[in-house]
């Protein structure tokens, strides 16, 4: 899951990013509104964590632009303004949720999970697919009731594809989603992950579509 965090405070931004990384999210952290707007145009994200008081371009302006482009990206607003009218304004302008500072990291992460879940059209906390059951909260996977240990990158790849069953992911899309633009990734990293997943969970789970990418059928 790729999350864009826009927070201009260096210590808070660092803290939220660390917290998200602990939960195996792929996080891009930006500190000004202008950069955030650009990133949202060129890259695709699963969730936006947005501070309202930002240099260059305010959080509310960014939010307005997103909704104007008919982008359904889930947005969670983080702000020090805790007046009810501010909250109402933020939500009315298209935010999906709202957290006032100072907040609890666990609550932030729970809201992130809930927003991601809902954006994928899911109401239950776990994902079921045949004999597979994946729990994104506890980062666990069971196959016919038996726990299967997966490294974070493989787990995230599986989660991503399970959330969008039937969608064909290109290698580039998967790389971007898992690693963002900050890391040097081996050119065949995705293929290696897919290979490992097939070995652990069976060959029929992930189908290769030649010249296009990978898909988990519905």
């Amino acid at each position: 899951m790729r999350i864009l965090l826009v927070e201009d405070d260096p210590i808070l931004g660092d803290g939220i990013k660390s917290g998200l990384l602990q939960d195996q999210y792929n996080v891009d952290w930006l500190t000004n509104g202008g950069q955030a707007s650009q990133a949202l145009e060129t890259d695709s994200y699963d969730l936006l964590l947005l501070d309202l008081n930002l240099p260059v371009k305010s959080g509310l302006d960014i939010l307005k632009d997103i909704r104007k482009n008919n982008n359904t990206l889930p947005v969670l607003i983080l702000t020090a303004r805790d007046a009810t009218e501010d909250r109402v304004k933020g939500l009315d302008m298209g935010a999906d949720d709202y957290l006032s500072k100072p907040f609890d990291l666990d609550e932030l992460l729970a809201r992130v999970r809930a927003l991601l879940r809902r954006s994928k059209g899911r109401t239950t906390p776990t994902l079921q697919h045949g004999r597979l059951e994946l729990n994104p909260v506890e980062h666990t996977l069971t196959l016919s009731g038996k726990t299967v240990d997966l490294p974070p990158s493989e787990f995230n790849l599986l989660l991503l594809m399970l959330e969008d069953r039937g969608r064909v992911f290109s290698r580039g899309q998967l790389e971007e989603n898992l690693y963002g633009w900050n890391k040097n990734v081996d050119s065949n990293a995705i293929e290696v992950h897919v290979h490992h997943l097939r070995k652990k969970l069976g060959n029929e789970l992930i189908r290769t579509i030649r010249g296009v990418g990978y898909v988990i059928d519905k």
Partner: protein
Amino acid sequence: MKSIRNRILIWVFLLFLIIWAGISYATFYQSSHEVEELFDSELAQVAGVLTQISTALELKHAGIEPRLQKDVYGHRYEKKIAFQIFENNKLILYSANAPTTIMSKENGFSDQMINNKLWRVFRLQTKEHEQEIITAERYDVRDEIVLKITTDSLYPLTLMIPILLLIIWIGIDRGLSPIRRLTRQIWHRSPDNLEPISVNFDIPSEINPLFTALNNLLDKLKDAFERERRFTSDAAHELQTPLASIKTQAQVALRSQNKNEQHHALEKTIEGINRATHMVQQLLALARLEPLATLGQKSELDLYALTQTLMAELDIESHKKILSSASMVRNLLISKATNPQ
């Protein structure tokens, strides 16, 4: 406690006392003078009448006791009038209250001391009969009458004093009623109500300055409270982010199983605490600059120089972020402009 009503009453009462005393004295003086004249003319008249009578009767009784009986007198004041009739230096008729020796040797009016009493005496001498008619009256009797007349005439005025004072008391009470109503209205205000006092009655011109001053004060207080409230709210707002960062970093450290990550998060936590501490110090410095004591005093001010000084004082250059809240800087400048120290 000094009461306006009592003070006015005391002054009015003193004034009345002085006027009353003046009137009483004038009345007494005037009356006594008039009464003296009246009595004097009475003495003369009685003497005249006696002359006529004695001439007509041709009284020439020698050797008999020519004293008149007491019970012939009719009026209660009349008995005090004494008379003597002499013929050829011989007392031929006299009243019961008159002595037997001649009361006055000079004609006309005179004051004589007889038997330790002061008398007013009138002596009339006829030429043809060589009679001497003397009428006299005791001064203490006269004074008694004078006193009676004066006090009688002063009665109504004396009775008027308490009535007048009562009317004045009621008048003052009525006049002071706007103050009472205003007091009641202020008394019943809730402490957080700093709106100007409005009344549905006419404020007397005497207390209008007080009323206006009070409303002015309320207005200033409201401004001050508003500024204070805004400052507190801004301060709280500015502290939200540092607190959030401390909390988040601490929770990251708590959740982490990786030593390096924990160390990093704890370092960031301490960094966040240092930053928050600095910010609190800045806010306290700002709060000290927020003046409440010098409300409403205006003077010219070099804003540019002041801003520079403030920026140096508050170390804004190196902490732009902390004072980035436009409203705080604005408040600071506004408060400095309106309330220079």
